[in-house]
């Protein structure tokens, strides 16, 4: 247990020392928040059923962070660790393989939580954020969404031949998804035919679920999102346990 705690803490420090990952997880979502907050403010508008632009952006940007840490962060870190032999060296110690993977999940989860916490804090302090949901519902949905995207990241990390391809493929998957899922900009702004395509993107369901629970909708109104994301988590965990490679 002491090894697990120390290893996790070390990986957290390393995450914060990697400027690109820390920027996109912690700083970039805040920059988006302040940019669009300055442009649109947070006045209630009929387009968002009486909520302001910031009110609906916070759950959407949270989805963006989940996508960043899962598809970009995990994929790039794990495929680089594998390619460089960092994982090989760890495997030669008594540290158990599951401990290594669990620590990676904890680190990336903690960073995702901090990213969201910063958003909520900034929204509260600067834009008088409105939240009508149940904090436990949001927390549960946040955990489900995060874990299902981490399992995607582990699949990618396992099948990418090099860290470089991991990075490129991660970006090719992530960036279109960012803009077509409602995470980067509200789905309401997208034309109908694009929105139909959006339903095929897993991140869209993260946005829909988090936004719905944020404004006080119940889980029963979001069974399809729940089923899709839970299936993604189960299938992703099964596939990645088969495809994950240590070297």
């Amino acid at each position: 247990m002491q090894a697990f705690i120390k290893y996790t803490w070390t990986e957290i420090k390393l995450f914060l020392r990697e400027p690109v990952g820390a920027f996109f997880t912690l700083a970039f979502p805040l920059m988006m928040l302040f940019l669009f907050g300055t442009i649109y403010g947070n006045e209630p508008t009929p387009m968002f059923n009486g909520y302001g632009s910031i009110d609906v952006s916070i759950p959407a940007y949270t989805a963006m962070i989940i996508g960043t840490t899962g598809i970009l962060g995990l994929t790039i870190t794990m495929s680089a660790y594998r390619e460089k032999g960092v994982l090989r060296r760890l495997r030669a110690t008594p540290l158990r393989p599951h401990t290594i993977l669990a620590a990676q999940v904890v680190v990336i989860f903690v960073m995702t939580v901090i990213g969201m916490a910063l958003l909520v804090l900034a929204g509260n302090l600067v834009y008088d954020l409105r939240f009508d949901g149940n904090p436990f519902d949001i927390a549960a949905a946040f955990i489900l969404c995060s874990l299902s995207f981490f399992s995607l990241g582990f699949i990618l990390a396992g099948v990418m031949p090099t860290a470089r391809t991991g990075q490129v493929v991660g970006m090719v998957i992530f960036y279109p998804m960012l803009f077509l899922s409602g995470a980067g900009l509200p789905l309401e702004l997208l034309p109908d035919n694009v929105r139909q395509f959006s339903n095929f993107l897993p991140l869209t369901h993260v946005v829909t679920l988090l936004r719905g629970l944020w404004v006080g909708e119940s889980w029963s109104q979001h069974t399809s999102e729940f089923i899709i994301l839970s299936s993604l988590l189960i299938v992703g965990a099964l596939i990645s346990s088969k495809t994950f490679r240590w070297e």
Partner: protein
Amino acid sequence: MKTIIQVNELRKTYQKTVAVDGVSFEVMEGEIFGMVGPNGAGKTTTIECIEGLRKPDGGAISVLDLDPSRQERQLRPLLGIQLQEANLPDHLKVWEALDLYTSFYPRTLDWEELIVGLGLLEKRNTAFGKLSGGQKQRLFIALALLNDPPLVFLDELTTGLDPQARHAIWALVEDVRHRGKTVFLTTHFMEEAERLCDRVAIMDNGKIVALDTPENLIGSLGIEERIIFKVDGAYPIEILSKVPRVTRIETMQDEIVIYGRANDSDDHPPLVTDIVTIMAAEGIRFIDLRTEQPNLEDVFLTLTGRQMRS
């Protein structure tokens, strides 16, 4: 003496390539055992099967009376491992790496004392990515010694290092043995094996082609020492060929190469003494005289018909 590692008919195949093809040997307590051979000979596969990092396709391995593929958990804390291709995260500092790896083992040495001996103390706050090749290797040696293991594996320890760093690492390995540990190392530098190892297994194409002390390997094959020089004027071949122990003489361009049996006892003066004495007595003027002692490179050449470095 106690047997620390026992390998019997080890086999390992990758797809269609046979990496290790029926290898058997034993490593005794307290010795430095070396496995030498060209890249691709199967050294790393062998060492990684013994370390329990790869599953053999056939054969039996016993390490400290444990089976590495079935009793990996019991074995891990007892082994010190330096891998051929491994890294730490670039941003991880030296002290953090040692502190982290300390937490993985039930019992460890004080890492601060360890890195004083390895000359890394002033680098304790340096990130791994900023270390030189030699410093990285010294850190990996520190990590391999951290748990005070009775058995240490060093895989291609000095590959990629300059000669100065290499000699510094050799001194460290000898120091490890003086602490009473058993060392299993692989290298493709014959000089390294000759200098460090008590016994050497020469590997080629997945098989052990010879296994003995470096002296016996060199002595047993009747490999000759060479005395090479240039002369002014006539080549005094007839006189020199009558010197005892000289087996043959070749002339190559302007150089004369005398082959003779290597000195197998201390009773005789070195062959070069006889040659020089006779040439001085005959008034033959020679220049650029040098001798070449037989070494493990010659053993490999004799056994396989190939140069090690091809």
